[in-house]
C-alpha cells in the first residue's frame, strides 16, 4: 500500500469526518440489527431448544424397553443397556428398571385371588411403609389392601402358586405393608395395576377376559428375588438429560432413533421373546427441530427483508457520498489521478469502515440482545442468558462490512464519463440506462414470481426432509425477492406519478409546488433512492406488523382448534357421576359437558365377516359429546368454518324408553336366571350377564350381573343400583331396556375337537323370571352387615316387543314362552370353543343408523356423502352409522383431519345395544370464563389435567422455540423505522447540501427563504407520500400473498385452521405517522441548513 494514499485517505477523512460518520452509522446500524437477528436465531437453538427439551414432560423424552425374558433378567437388561447406550451416545441419561412376574395365585386365600411380584428401582419414593419395612432378598412387602382383605401380617409366610393353583411357587416372608402414594401417576404406569394395588376384576389368564377375580400387587421384592418367580416382563426406562446438549446431538439422536428398536431386538437376541421399544423421544426431538426450523424460517424471512432494506440504505448513503464527492473526484482526475489510484484510495477508506463495522456491530448486537432478552416473554422462554458472541454474529457483520466495501467502491469501478456525458446524463437520463434498469427489474420480477410460485407449491419455507422439518433458504428468500421486486416496480411508477403531479403543478402561477415536483420527478435517481428506502422500510414494517398479527391470530385459532371449549379437563377419576360432580361447577361459573374421545376404525364395508368385532378400515378419531357439548363447536373460527353445522346435524332425540320400568325409589332389582345349553360336549360354558338401563333423560348405562355357569339350573341374582348411581347419577325412574349376554367356553384346548364337530348346532337359552324391585328397608347397626332389602315383584308386559342384536349367534326366539324374559339362540360348538358368542335383547329398536359427522378429508377418503352408511368400530364394538354431514375440520387435539363426531347419548345407546358397556367420559369440555379458570382448576382432583384455550394460546405464543419469531418481527418493524429515519434524514441533508449552489441561485433570483424551505419540505412530503403509499400497498399485498405461506405451524406445515391474514390497521397507521415524523425530523434538520444558506457566500465560493 502506498503511504501517500494512506496519508491522503487520512487527511480526507479528517476533513470529511461527518460524511464518513454518517456512512459508518448507517452501516453499523444495519449490521447490528442483522447480527441481533442472527444472535436471536442462535440463542433460540442453544437456549430455547435446550429449555424446550429440559422442560418437556418426561413421558415425551424417555425410552422404555419392555422385554418378555427368555433368559435371566440381568442378561436381558445388560443387552438392552448396551443397545440403548449406543443409541444415546454422549447424551447423558438415567436408567430405571422394573421387573414383574406373570400373574400368580395366592392358593391359601379364599377365592384364590391373583397377585404378582415386582422389583422397581426407586420404589421407596412412591410407596409409604405403613408397617414393617422394605423387603430384602426372599421377602416381599405387600399392599395394605392385600394385608387387610386377606388378613396377611408382617412376618407371615405368603405362599404363591401358578394361576390354576397347580404348581407352587417359592413362598416369601412378608417384610412390610405399604400404601401407594399417588396411584395412577406416571411412576406407576409400568405397574400392572398402575398403583391401584387391588383390582377386583382381574381377568383370569386363559379365560378370555370373562372370568374376573380379585387381584393384588405388586408384592414388592428385590431384583434378585424376583428372579425366583417366572418373570413376565423386564421394563427398562431411560431418560436423557438435555441440559447441556446441542441441537446437533438432537439431530444425531433422530437419525439413530430409526434403528433403535431393530438394534435393541438384535442385542437381546434369544434372551427375550417379545421386545418392545416405546418412545416419543424422536417425535419430541423432531418437534423441537421442526419448531427451530420454523423459527429460523421466520427469522430468516425477516432477516432477509432487513438485509434488503440495509443494503438499500447503505447503497443510498454511499451513493449520496459519491455524489457529494463528485467534484472532488473530477478535480483529482483532472490533476492526473488514474482510476486505479482513485480505486485504491476508496478501497483504503471502505476497508477501514468495513472493518470498524464488522468489529463493533457484534458487540452492539450482543448489547441489543441483552435488552431484548430481558423482556418477560423472552425471559420465560429461558432466553435471558448470555449467548456470548457466536461465530454467526461475526459472519453476519463481516458480510455487512463486505457489502459496505462493495457499495462504496462500486461507483469507482464505473467507466469515467466525460464532462459532456456527465452533463448530458444529469440533464436527462439515458435511454440505454433505462432499458438496462428495466431489464434488471424484469429479471428480478421473474425471479420473485418463480420464488412465490415455488413457495405456493410447497406452502411453506419449511419442508419435511425424512420426517424432520428443514428450512429451505431459497423458499425463505421468496418474500425478500417479492419485496425487492415490488419496491422496484413501485419506484418505477415515480416518474409517472410525479409527471402527473408536475402537469398539475406547472399549470399554476406559483413556483414552490412546481419546483418541488420538478425536483422529485426529474431527478429520479435521487427520488428513487429515497422513495425506495421509504417504500422498503414502510412495507417491511407493515408486513412485519401484519405478519405478527397474523401469526398471533393463527396461534389463537390453533388454540381454539385444540380446545373446542374454554377448558378441556381429562384424567378425572371415577365414573360419569363422580367426574360430572368434579367437572361441572356452577358455583365457579363452569358448565362441563362429557366427551368421549377415542380411536375408532371406520369403513364403508357394511357387512361383517364372522368374528369381526371391528371393521377393517381407516383409523380415525371419534369424538362424541352431549347436545350442550356439541354446541360449543359453533363458536369462533371453528364454527365459522363449518363446525357450527355439527350440533345441528347431530341433534338427537332419545327414543321413548321401553322395557321393564323400575319403581321410582328402587334400590336394586332381583331375578332368577336359568342359562342352559343343548351341548353335551362343552360342559364348562359361562354366561356373563349385564342389564341395560335407561334413565328418564334417555341416558344409557349398564350394570354387571356377574358370570354364571350354564348348567340349566335356576340361579338367583341381585343387583343394587347404588354403584350405578355413584357412577352415572341417573335420573329416576330407570327402565331395564335390555340384557347383554356373553357366552364363553373355558374348555380351551381340552375340548374334544372331533366330538365338537360332530355335535353341530348348539342352542343357548337364557330365561329370566321372578323379576322384582328391591327397596332398602334397613341397614343393621353391625360392622359389615348386609342391608335388608324388600323385594316387590315386577310385572313384565307380555306384549313387550324385544329386539336383538347378536354376534356369532343366530337369535331364534325372543318369546317369553312362560318366562318373563327369554332369549334363545343358535351357534356352533366349534365356534363357541374359540370365540365367545354374544347377544343383546333390547326393548328399544336397534337403530343401526348412528348419525355421524365426518371431516371432509375423511369423507373424501371414504368417498361417502351425507346420507351414506358406514360401519364404525369403537372400543371393539362395531356399529352401523349414517353420515349426517361433512364439515371441513373438527376442533380438538392434534391435526384432526380424519375424524368422526357423534352425539354422546346416541353413541352410548348404540354401544349398549351392540353389547358394550356404557362408556366413561374421556374428557370434559368446560364453558368457563378465563379469569375463573385458576379457581376452577384448583377445585379439580389432583389427577385431573386441565388445559385452557387461553393458556394454550399464550403457551403457543410464548413457546421457547417460538418467542424468537415475535422478537424478530418486533425488531424488524422497529428497525425498519429507524433505518428509514436515518436513511431519509441522510438523504435529505446530503441532497440539500449537494444542491447548495442551486438553492443559492434560486435565492439570488428572488426565491425567499420561507419559499425555499417550503420547496424542500414539499419535496420531502412528496417523497414520503409516495414512499408511504407504495410501502403500505406493497407491505399489505405481501402480507396477503406471502403471510399465509410463511406463518407456518409448529411442525412447519400450514397450520390448522388455515391462516387468515390480520392487518392491524391502527398499528400500521401508526407506522405511517412515524414515517411522517421522520419527514418532520428531516425537514427540521434541513430547515437549519436552508436558513444558513448565504447566497452571496455560496455563489462566491461555489460551495
Amino acid at each position, binding site marked *: 500500500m502506498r503511504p501517500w494514499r494512506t496519508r491522503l485517505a487520512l487527511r480526507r477523512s479528517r476533513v470529511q469526518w461527518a460524511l464518513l460518520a454518517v456512512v459508518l452509522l448507517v452501516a453499523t446500524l444495519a449490521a447490528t440489527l442483522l447480527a441481533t437477528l442472527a444472535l436471536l436465531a442462535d440463542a433460540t437453538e442453544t437456549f430455547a431448544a435446550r429449555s424446550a427439551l429440559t422442560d418437556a414432560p418426561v413421558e415425551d423424552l424417555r425410552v422404555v424397553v419392555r422385554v418378555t425374558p427368555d433368559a435371566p433378567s440381568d442378561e436381558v437388561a445388560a443387552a438392552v443397556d448396551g443397545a440403548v447406550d449406543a443409541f444415546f451416545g454422549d447424551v447423558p441419561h438415567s436408567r430405571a428398571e422394573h421387573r414383574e412376574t406373570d400373574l400368580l395365585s395366592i392358593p391359601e386365600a379364599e377365592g384364590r385371588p391373583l397377585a404378582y411380584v415386582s422389583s422397581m428401582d426407586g420404589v421407596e419414593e412412591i410407596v409409604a411403609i405403613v408397617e414393617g419395612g422394605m423387603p430384602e432378598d426372599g421377602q416381599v412387602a405387600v399392599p395394605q389392601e392385600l394385608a387387610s382383605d386377606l388378613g396377611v401380617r408382617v412376618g407371615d409366610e405368603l405362599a404363591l402358586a401358578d394361576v390354576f393353583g397347580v404348581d407352587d411357587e417359592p413362598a416369601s416372608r412378608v417384610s412390610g405393608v405399604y400404601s401407594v402414594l399417588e396411584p395412577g401417576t406416571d411412576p406407576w404406569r409400568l405397574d400392572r395395576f398402575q398403583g391401584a394395588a387391588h383390582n377386583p376384576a382381574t381377568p383370569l389368564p386363559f379365560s378370555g377376559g370373562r372370568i374376573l377375580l380379585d387381584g393384588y400387587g405388586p408384592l414388592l421384592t428385590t431384583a434378585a428375588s424376583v428372579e425366583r418367580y417366572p418373570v413376565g416382563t423386564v421394563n427398562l426406562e431411560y431418560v436423557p438429560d438435555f441440559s447441556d446438549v446441542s441441537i446437533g446431538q438432537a439431530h444425531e439422536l433422530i437419525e439413530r432413533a430409526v434403528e433403535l428398536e431393530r438394534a435393541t431386538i438384535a442385542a437381546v437376541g434369544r434372551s427375550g421373546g417379545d421386545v418392545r421399544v416405546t418412545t416419543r423421544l424422536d417425535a419430541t426431538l423432531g418437534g423441537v427441530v421442526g419448531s427451530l426450523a420454523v423459527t429460523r424460517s421466520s427469522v430468516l424471512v425477516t432477516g432477509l427483508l432487513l438485509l434488503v432494506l440495509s443494503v438499500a440504505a447503505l447503497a443510498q448513503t454511499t451513493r449520496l457520498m459519491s455524489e457529494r464527492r463528485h467534484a472532488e473526484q473530477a478535480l483529482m482526475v483532472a490533476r492526473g489521478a488514474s482510476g486505479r489510484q482513485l480505486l485504491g484510495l476508496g478501497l483504503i477508506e471502505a476497508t477501514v469502515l468495513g472493518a470498524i463495522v464488522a468489529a463493533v456491530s457484534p458487540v452492539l448486537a450482543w448489547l441489543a440482545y441483552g435488552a431484548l432478552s430481558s423482556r418477560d416473554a423472552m425471559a420465560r422462554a429461558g432466553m435471558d442468558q448470555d449467548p456470548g458472541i457466536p461465530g454467526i454474529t461475526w459472519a453476519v457483520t463481516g458480510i455487512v462490512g463486505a457489502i459496505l466495501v462493495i457499495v462504496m467502491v462500486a461507483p469507482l469501478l464505473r467507466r469515467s464519463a466525460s464532462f459532456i456525458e456527465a452533463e448530458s446524463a444529469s440533464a436527462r437520463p439515458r435511454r440505454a440506462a433505462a432499458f438496462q434498469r428495466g431489464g434488471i427489474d424484469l429479471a428480478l420480477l421473474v425471479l420473485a414470481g418463480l420464488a412465490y410460485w415455488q413457495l405456493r407449491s410447497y406452502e411453506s419455507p419449511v419442508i419435511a426432509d425424512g420426517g424432520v422439518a428443514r428450512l429451505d433458504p431459497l423458499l425463505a428468500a421468496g418474500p425478500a425477492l417479492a419485496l425487492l421486486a415490488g419496491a422496484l416496480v413501485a419506484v418505477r411508477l415515480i416518474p409517472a406519478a410525479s409527471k402527473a403531479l408536475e402537469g398539475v403543478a406547472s399549470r399554476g402561477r406559483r413556483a414552490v409546488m412546481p419546483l418541488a415536483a420538478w425536483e422529485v420527478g426529474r431527478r429520479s435517481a435521487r427520488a428513487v433512492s429515497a422513495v425506495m428506502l421509504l417504500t422498503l422500510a414502510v412495507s417491511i414494517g407493515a408486513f412485519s406488523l401484519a405478519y405478527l398479527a397474523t401469526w398471533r391470530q393463527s396461534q389463537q385459532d390453533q388454540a381454539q382448534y385444540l380446545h373446542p371449549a374454554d377448558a378441556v379437563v381429562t384424567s378425572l377419576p371415577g365414573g360419569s357421576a363422580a367426574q360430572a360432580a368434579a367437572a361441572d361447577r356452577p358455583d365457579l361459573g363452569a358448565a362441563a359437558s362429557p366427551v368421549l374421545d377415542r380411536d375408532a376404525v371406520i369403513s364403508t364395508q357394511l357387512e361383517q365377516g364372522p368374528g369381526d368385532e371391528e371393521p377393517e378400515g381407516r383409523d380415525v378419531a371419534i369424538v362424541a359429546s352431549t347436545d350442550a357439548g356439541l354446541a360449543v363447536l359453533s363458536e369462533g373460527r371453528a364454527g365459522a368454518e363449518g363446525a357450527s353445522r355439527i350440533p345441528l346435524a347431530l341433534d338427537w332425540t332419545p327414543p321413548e324408553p321401553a322395557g321393564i320400568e323400575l319403581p321410582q325409589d328402587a334400590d336394586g332389582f332381583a331375578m332368577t336366571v336359568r342359562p342352559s345349553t343343548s351341548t353335551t360336549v362343552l360342559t364348562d360354558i359361562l354366561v356373563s350377564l349385564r342389564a341395560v338401563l335407561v334413565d328418564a333423560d334417555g341416558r344409557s348405562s349398564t350394570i354387571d350381573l356377574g358370570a354364571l355357569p350354564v348348567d340349566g339350573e335356576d340361579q338367583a341374582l341381585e343387583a343394587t343400583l347404588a354403584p350405578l348411581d355413584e357412577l352415572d347419577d341417573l335420573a329416576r325412574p330407570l327402565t331395564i331396556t335390555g340384557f347383554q349376554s356373553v357366552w364363553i367356553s373355558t374348555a380351551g384346548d381340552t375340548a374334544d375337537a372331533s366330538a365338537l364337530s360332530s355335535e353341530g348346532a348348539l342352542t343357548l337359552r337364557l330365561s329370566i323370571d321372578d323379576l322384582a324391585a328391591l327397596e332398602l328397608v334397613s341397614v343393621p347397626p353391625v360392622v359389615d352387615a348386609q342391608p335388608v332389602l324388600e323385594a316387590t315383584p315386577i310385572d313384565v308386559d307380555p306384549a313387550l316387543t324385544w329386539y336383538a342384536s347378536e354376534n356369532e349367534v343366530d337369535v331364534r326366539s325372543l318369546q317369553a314362552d312362560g318366562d318373563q324374559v327369554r332369549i334363545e339362540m343358535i351357534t356352533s360348538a366349534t365356534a363357541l370353543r374359540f370365540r365367545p358368542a354374544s347377544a343383546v335383547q333390547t326393548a328399544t329398536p336397534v337403530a343401526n343408523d348412528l348419525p355421524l359427522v365426518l371431516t371432509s378429508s375423511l369423507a373424501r377418503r371414504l368417498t361417502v356423502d351425507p346420507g351414506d352408511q358406514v360401519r364404525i368400530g369403537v372400543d371393539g364394538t362395531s356399529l352401523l352409522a349414517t353420515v349426517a354431514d361433512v364439515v371441513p375440520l373438527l376442533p380438538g387435539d392434534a391435526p384432526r383431519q380424519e375424524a368422526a363426531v357423534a352425539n354422546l347419548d346416541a353413541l352410548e345407546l348404540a354401544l349398549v345395544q351392540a353389547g358394550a358397556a356404557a362408556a366413561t367420559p374421556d374428557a370434559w369440555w368446560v364453558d368457563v370464563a378465563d379469569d375463573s379458570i385458576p379457581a376452577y382448576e384448583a377445585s379439580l382432583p389432583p389427577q385431573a389435567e386441565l388445559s385452557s384455550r387461553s393458556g394454550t394460546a399464550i403457551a403457543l405464543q410464548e413457546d421457547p422455540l417460538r418467542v424468537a419469531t415475535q422478537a424478530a418481527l418486533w425488531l424488524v418493524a422497529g428497525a425498519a423505522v429507524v433505518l428509514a429515519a436515518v436513511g431519509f434524514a441522510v438523504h435529505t441533508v446530503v441532497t440539500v447540501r449537494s444542491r447548495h449552489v442551486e438553492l443559492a*441561485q434560486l435565492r439570488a433570483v428572488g426565491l425567499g427563504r420561507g419559499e425555499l424551505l417550503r420547496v424542500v419540505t414539499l419535496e420531502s412530503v412528496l417523497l414520503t407520500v409516495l414512499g408511504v403509499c407504495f410501502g403500505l400497498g406493497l407491505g399489505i399485498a405481501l402480507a396477503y400473498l406471502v403471510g399465509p405461506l410463511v406463518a407456518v405451524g409448529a411442525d412447519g406445515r400450514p397450520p390448522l385452521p388455515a391462516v387468515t391474514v390480520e392487518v392491524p390497521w391502527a398499528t400500521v397507521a401508526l407506522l405511517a405517522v412515524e414515517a411522517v415524523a421522520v419527514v418532520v425530523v428531516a425537514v427540521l434538520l434541513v430547515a437549519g441548513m436552508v436558513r444558513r444558506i448565504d447566497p452571496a457566500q455560496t455563489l462566491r465560493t461555489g460551495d
Partner: protein
Amino acid sequence: MSAEERRDAERAGEPMVSVERVSRVFGYGSQQVTALEDVSFDVPRGRLVALVGRSGSGKTSLLNCIGGLDRPTAGRITVDGVEVTALSERRRTGLRRDTVAFVFQTFGLVPMLSAAENVGLPMRLKATRTRDREQRVAELLDLVGLTQHRDQRPGELSGGQQQRVAIARALANEPRLLIADEPTGQLDADTGQAVMALLRDVIAAQGMTALVSTHDQGLMDIADATVRLADGRLVAEDDASFVGTGSRATGSEHQGRVV
C-alpha cells in the same frame, strides 16, 4: 399617471445605483479579509457600466452588495431610490425579484428545468398569470434567439445558449437594474462577444441600467462607463466617461459618478 410612473418621474434625476463609502470585510476565523474598502460611486439610470478589475479585486462582492445578496460591513447603497443596506432579508429578496436581476458567470440555471421553465421561473416568483407568463417566456426566448430550444435543459445547451437563457431569465420580470457577474467568463471569445452584443442590445431595448463585471475588453469598449476596482478599492481609470466627485478621492482612490 400611475403611482409607479409618478415615482419613476420623481426619481428620474436620481442615480439608479448609489454606492457610498461601502466596505465589506469577511472574517475567516481569526483572519479578516477586506474585500471592499470605502467604495463610493453612482450609476445613472439607463447606462451600461462595466466593472473591471483582477480576480479578487472585489467585483463580485460589490455586485452582491448592490443586488442585496450580501450586506456591506459599512457604507450605504441605494438602488432605484431604495436603500438596500437598510432592507430586511425579506425586502431584499423582494428587491431581487422585482427590481434587480442577476446574470452569473456560471449561468445559474436550474439543471432540471427546460430553457422555457428557467425563463419563466422569476415570473412564477411574482405569481404572474400563467397566460402572461407563457407569452413573455416566448417573447424572451425569441429575443435571445432560442425559441427552437425552449424544451431543452441546460445540460443540453451550449455555454453561450445557456447564458442567453440566463439573460432571458434576468429580463423576465423587467428589472430596472441588471447585474451581470462576468457573464462571458466561461465562454470562448466569439461566444462571449455574441453574448455581450445581446446583452447590450437587450439593455438598450429594455431601457434598463446594467452593471456588468468583466475582463472583456470588448464589453469595456461598448460600456457607457467603466469602474475599476483593485484590492477592494475604486481606482482612477483613464476613462472619459468616469467622473469622480473628487472630494474624497486621494491618489488612485476615487469616489465617482458615472455619467
